């Protein structure tokens, strides 16, 4: 326990987390500090490219691990399944409408790549290796949750429709394409390729992540300020409870399929994290009646900070106990 706390402590005073906190405070204090949208988008492109590329290089080095397929399937199953669990919880814990509950569920079945990146950098900090292909798993987990959510709505007689072309849009959304694409580039060019560009995608990575999290903090803070009162205590409780449940399920699955400790941690992080880019956009198209400030506030304002600060070290501690790694 104390070990977890010290771990969390260490984690909390890292430049990354403090940058996020700075953004959060600045926004809550109504400072006019903003990071231009183009720069934020540029940084996220950088992070996706770097994380994908490094994952690919790792795979090219250690080869396609036998558990790769299993892990991919596990990820997809989680992404399909978790929303149903989330939906049930929401209907019990909150007064959200079917539509809103379904929209929120989609977010929790999908993933947050920044949380994933934060997880990997915590592992690096402790020199714990993880399967390189976890980034591929991350990509695979983005979309399925959206289908589950639409199914949940249809089931309850709602008319959330899979608008034509939406599926293509989701599967080919920029972040998935970039993540998978750079993963393959890394896998093909391997260490030789990494050598050429490591001064760009490895060394400055942590620093860019700081500025990116500063922006995330600003956005989360502005969101929280504007959605005061939108959320009941039940909803907030859900946003903390759900990641814990998802992570617990993931630790079991991850250990069963024999992932390394690092791999288990990342699978937990993926399961516990919730989307705030791909899914919200898809929801605006597929479930326009759902209230954006509900799912954005829960996902970005509550779950994301929770995972970033307490969640990740907790998942790491659990994984180490379970896998004995």
């Amino acid at each position, binding site marked *: 326990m104390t070990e977890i706390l010290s771990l969390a402590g260490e984690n909390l005073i890292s430049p990354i987390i403090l940058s996020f906190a700075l953004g959060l405070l600045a926004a809550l204090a109504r400072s006019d500090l*903003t*990071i*231009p*949208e183009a720069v*934020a988008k540029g940084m996220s492109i950088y992070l996706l490219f770097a994380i994908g590329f490094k994952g690919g290089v790792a795979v090219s080095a250690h080869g396609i691990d036998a558990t790769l397929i299993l892990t991919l399937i596990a990820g997809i199953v989680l992404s399909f399944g978790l929303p149903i669990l989330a939906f049930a919880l929401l209907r019990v814990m909150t007064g959200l409408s079917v539509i809103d509950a379904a929209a929120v569920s989609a977010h929790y079945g999908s993933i947050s790549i920044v949380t994933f990146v934060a997880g990997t950098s915590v592992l690096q900090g402790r020199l714990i290796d993880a399967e390189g292909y976890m980034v591929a798993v991350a990509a695979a987990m983005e979309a399925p949750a959206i289908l589950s959510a639409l199914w949940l709505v249809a089931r309850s007689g709602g008319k959330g429709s899979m*608008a034509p072309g939406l599926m293509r849009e989701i599967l080919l959304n920029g*972040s998935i394409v970039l993540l998978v694409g750079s993963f393959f580039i890394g896998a093909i060019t391997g260490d030789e390729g990494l050598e050429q560009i490591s001064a760009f995608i490895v060394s400055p990575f942590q620093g860019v992540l700081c500025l990116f999290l500063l922006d*995330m903090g*600003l*956005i989360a803070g*502005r*969101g929280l300020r*504007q959605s005061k009162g939108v959320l009941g205590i039940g909803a907030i409780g859900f946003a903390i409870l759900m990641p814990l449940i998802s992570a617990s399920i993931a630790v079991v699955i991850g250990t069963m399929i024999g992932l390394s400790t690092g791999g288990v941690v990342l699978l937990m992080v993926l399961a516990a994290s919730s989307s*705030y*880019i*791909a899914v*919200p*956009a*898809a929801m*605006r*198209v597929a479930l*326009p*009646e759902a*209230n*954006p*400030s509900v799912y954005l506030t829960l996902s*970005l304002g509550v779950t994301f900070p929770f995972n970033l600060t307490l969640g990740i070290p907790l998942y790491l501690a659990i994984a180490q106990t379970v896998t004995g790694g």
Partner: protein
Amino acid sequence: METHTAKRVEIVIEAPLERRLTDALTEAGVTGYTILPVRGGSGRSGKWTREGQVGRAGMVAVVCLIRPERLDGLLEAAFAVVEKHIGVVSVTDAQVLRAERF
């Protein structure tokens, strides 16, 4: 200078719907439009600013100049998309040069 009467339709809509709107317009035979970025705004669903957004969120403004007789077709096409969504549609009378373009 010789000008021709036209309608100027301005549609403010959430960015994720942009492609659907322009597709609908094209289907309705409206091939001319200009898309302006939107920095922020306020409406029944509250305030927001471009900087306070992640990913594809935010709004855009689509401006169409068309012949008056084609207005209804456009509005129906646009409304079918905007209906369930956040956004506004406004129309003003206008004069245009080079009618051949409309």
